[in-house]
């Protein structure tokens, strides 16, 4: 006879959720510590370097902040963008593909538009990136609206298509291929001309890239967009109940296409900014933000401020592991992926524990 069963907790409290999250993270760091210790690495030292992204006792600490921000900005913008489509229950898992097409378009502009001032070139790069990604997203939405295609499958396939496109561009040494470095005999992606490389505001030695400022502005913009505008309202209604949206006289197809365009265009913007700040493109330019962004958006329960916070934490983890790994030859930055996986599992478990509880079944008293 079954004595125990799971029941939903009477009340959801944010405090409990955060405490459970914390416990989950501590446990996963504990597991990571055991792994580190078994490799002969002092886990405290390692975590110390990781959490401070290697800034302590570092003469070039500002370099680390710059590096960290370069990881954070694309992840943050992509997560915000994905959150937008998820809110509408449109399962856009094509972040990678949308990012790549954006990066390629930005590179086309960077390599071919010369002679314009730098800010204008970079704006053009971003516009090209946004348009190409946006149109790709719009196409997916169009097929969804018109023929009810499965957006999860379509966006998933787009990831692979775009990955092969960029791989092709990067491996084909031909005269027409302006993406490649002409000086190199081996096919490698070339560096953008100076006008295509982003600068920033100099604060002492530290270089605050424009992309960071844009990302911060986007947090506020998207928060307001979702919460206070008619468009945001339409997105929540469509996501909540398609039938209700139609009944209210909303043009559901138009809303889906518009939102998907914006969502993809934002990912394109992230790609344009990333390409411009790194001055080149590559097959790995996405740093998997299309995937990690999905995780960030869901861990944050599609809440915009939470997405910002979670992106920062994940970026610390990724960049921190990378810098910490430089000191220990026995370990590389893949440890970040491992640790990220463990943390994700424990946080999801924590989420489950905060929602459900185990209850013991009692027999009738008057048996």
């Amino acid at each position, binding site marked *: 006879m079954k004595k125990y069963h799971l029941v939903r907790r009477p009340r959801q409290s944010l405090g409990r959720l955060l405490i459970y999250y914390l416990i989950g993270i501590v446990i996963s760091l504990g597991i990571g510590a055991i792994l580190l210790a078994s490799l002969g690495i002092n886990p405290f030292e390692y975590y110390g370097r990781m959490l401070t992204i290697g800034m302590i006792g570092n003469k070039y600490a500002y370099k680390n902040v710059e590096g960290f921000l370069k990881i954070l900005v694309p992840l943050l913008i992509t997560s915000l963008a994905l959150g937008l489509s998820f809110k509408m229950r449109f399962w856009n898992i094509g972040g990678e593909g949308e990012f790549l097409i954006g990066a390629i378009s930005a590179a086309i502009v960077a390599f071919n538009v010369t002679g314009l001032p730098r800010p204008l070139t970079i704006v053009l790069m971003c516009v090209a990136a946004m348009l190409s990604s946006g149109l790709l997203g719009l196409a997916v939405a169009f097929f969804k609206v018109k023929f009810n295609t499965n957006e999860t499958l379509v966006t998933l396939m787009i990831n692979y298509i775009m990955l092969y496109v960029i791989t092709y561009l990067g491996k084909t040494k031909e005269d027409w291929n302006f993406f490649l470095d002409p000086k190199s005999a081996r096919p490698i992606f070339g560096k953008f001309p100076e006008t295509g490389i982003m600068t920033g505001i100099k604060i002492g030695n530290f270089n605050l890239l424009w992309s960071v400022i844009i990302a911060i502005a986007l947090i506020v913009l998207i928060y307001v967009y979702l919460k206070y505008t008619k468009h945001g*309202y339409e997105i929540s*209604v469509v996501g909540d109940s398609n039938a209700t949206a139609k009944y*209210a*006289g909303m043009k559901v197809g138009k809303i889906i296409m518009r939102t998907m365009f914006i969502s993809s265009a934002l990912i394109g913007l992230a790609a344009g900014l990333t390409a411009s700040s790194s001055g080149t493109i590559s097959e790995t330019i996405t740093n998997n933000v299309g995937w990690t962004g999905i995780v960030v958006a869901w861990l944050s329960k599609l809440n915009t401020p939470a997405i910002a916070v979670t992106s920062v934490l994940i970026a610390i983890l990724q960049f921190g592991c990378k810098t910490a790994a430089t000191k220990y030859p026995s370990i590389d930055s893949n440890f970040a992926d491992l640790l990220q996986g463990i943390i994700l599992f424990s946080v999801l478990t924590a989420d489950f524990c905060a929602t459900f509880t185990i209850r013991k079944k009692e027999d009738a*008293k008057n048996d």
Partner: protein
Amino acid sequence: MEYAIELKGISKQFGTLFANKNVNLQLKKSEILALLGENGSGKTTLMNMLSGIYMPDSGSIFINGKKVSISSPEDSAKLGIGMVHQHFKLIERFSALDNIRIGLREDKSFLLKKDTKNEVMKMAEKFGFDIDPDKLVSNMSVSEKQTLEILKVLCYGAKIIILDEPTAVLTVQEIDKLFAVLRKMKEEGHSIIIITHKLNEVMAISDRVTVLRHGEYINTVNTAETDEKMLTELMVGRKVNLFIERPPIEKTKPLLEIRGLTVKNDEGAVAVDHLDFYIRGGEILGVAGIAGSGQKELCEAIAGLRPIVEGKMIHKGENIVGLSPKKILEKGISMSFIPEDRLGMGLAPSLSITDNMILKNYSEPKGPFIDRKSAREEAKKVIERLKVVTPSTETPVRKLSGGNVQKVLLGREIKSGPNVLITAYPVRGLDINSSYMIYNILNDEKKKDVGILFIGEDIDVMMALCDKIMVICHGKLQGVVNSNHTTKEEIGLMMTGALNLVDKGGKTAGIARDSGFADNEETNETEEAGL
């Protein structure tokens, strides 16, 4: 005495809410027990614990005197319990026989198709079911689907049958047929629990009645020793006036006239077929018909949500065919449709009451932003006026109880001051108190000279509340009758298409004498048939 089922001290908690609290219930062998209670009184939850969908938090279940633990529908079926749910669990693309075959267990699951068919047909014959085993479920009427559900649980060897609100979707004649089958099953030694909140049915079919209120066990009485009034008091906990008011109102000219309306359903079949009718201000026109007779399509057509194949719709002398839903709304025609799941249409369940208030007019304020401040004021007004029970205006609608959800929906529809109110199933699944509250709201609107189209399920209610009743069958008009001059049986016959009163006595129903149609001068016919 050994009971077929005995429940002792069953409790089940969802969050802080007790769905069932220390409930006792005994089902004798070969009896029909009615489980009576208002909505949210825990009837379905209790039965779901018998069918293995939920597990009780505390308490014991005895089947034939033996203590058992039911932790899955599988366990429940093994104990000989079969439940016919309110929402059918059938595969639309399968035939009746295949729907039965997929659920057969163990030794029976290896039977050849024709052997199973034989067994099924034997079972059907034994209880007097009328069923075609090769018919696809998607081609079946609601009552056929229900027959199949019952036959299914019988084929799985159920000795104890639980029926969750089986009559909600049936016509009077179909209900009689169902009851005959139930009596037959009882004779064959089956024990039956029937969940319902229709008192006349309880009186007609049951041997005993167990009453629940707010999840608690109240009492069990012998049907022969009780009456509807007493049952209501047990159910509600106080005396209730069961009289539905129908205030007489001076009628105005036809507000909305529909002529020759033809609309197709999602599958492309004709759902509304050359329908003629009109609504005057200050009257409630009921629409009676078997579920799926084109009610939904009619509502959607009037609201501009569904393309019109043919026909005219004149509102205050203006053609509204082809207008956008928004334009139709602006003319003061408001439609509220309560679908079976009660949340699917008209409300966004995860959004707050405030946000749901502006669903239809969120785009009115200029600029890109929505006006949540006045929405909150409106939410407050609706909550106050219709006595919606809610912690705040910001509570998501899905967290409200059924009655309150419907009040929010209706409240929003009438707050904009419509002149035509189309309301489909507004009391669907509501308890007595909430239903009467809704009737009062509708009557208040009627007094304001609003023309109301009331699409309903319960003929008794329609005859009490509506001034006239229009009956449709397969989207065709069967006639318009005056509530004072008709009978339940007459309406029942019209619903099945057996009786057609459209041209009764040379008068054509559904066309107003003082019609606003310009081309209508020579047809100076009737007000309404049967007057």
